[in-house]
């Protein structure tokens, strides 16, 4: 099956810092989504981005499908950005999302 690798596994930053999270995948995909799981366990969809670039406030994401990676950028981090960020991909015809192991982000005040 498709492999999804996220890096770094852990990231600790001070409030106000910028960060880049990476997601590499091993096969062509027609679906890529980024999720944030907050410290209370709630999963929030951040981006649906099989290709191209999207921005939503302080967050943006870029997927380069031909090179099989996606990046999530968080600017001017806030403590509420803490949690685990998951990348999930769907291989063409697979009809299921495969999740990476996540990047745990801790933003200290």
């Amino acid at each position: 099956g498709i492999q999804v690798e996220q890096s770094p596994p852990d990231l600790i930053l001070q409030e106000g810092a910028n960060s880049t999270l990476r997601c590499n995948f091993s096969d062509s995909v027609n679906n890529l989504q980024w999720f944030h799981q907050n410290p209370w366990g709630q999963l929030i969809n951040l981006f649906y981005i099989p290709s191209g670039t999207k921005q939503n406030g302080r967050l943006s994401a870029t997927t380069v499908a031909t090179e099989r990676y996606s990046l999530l950028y968080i600017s001017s981090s806030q403590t509420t950005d803490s949690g685990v960020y998951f990348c999930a991909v769907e291989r063409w015809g697979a009809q299921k999302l495969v999740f990476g192991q996540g990047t745990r982000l801790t933003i200290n005040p």
Partner: protein
Amino acid sequence: IAGITQAPTSQILAAGRRMTLRCTQDMRHNAMYWYRQDLGLGLRLIHYSNTAGTTGKGEVPDGYSVSRANTDDFPLTLASAVPSQTSVYFCASSDSLGDEQFFGPGTRLTVL
């Protein structure tokens, strides 16, 4: 209600007992999914449904069954719970397969 609701929030269950986790969405989404989340293993798909009346197996379907009698509800049943089914279970939905997924709050299940 708005979005996806799951019940119960948490449950402690004796091994061998039958348990049904409930999931209801009010977004009129066609596709629904069940995942389990385990420490170190991330989220894994158990079963999914493309539309009412159809279901499919995900990555880890053994020991679980689902039904999709209508658009809104997608219950997950453990016929005879085992300790390895201790996990946090998330229900999700999307407009159709392959679209942006929205998650419920999860059910924490402990099987003793």
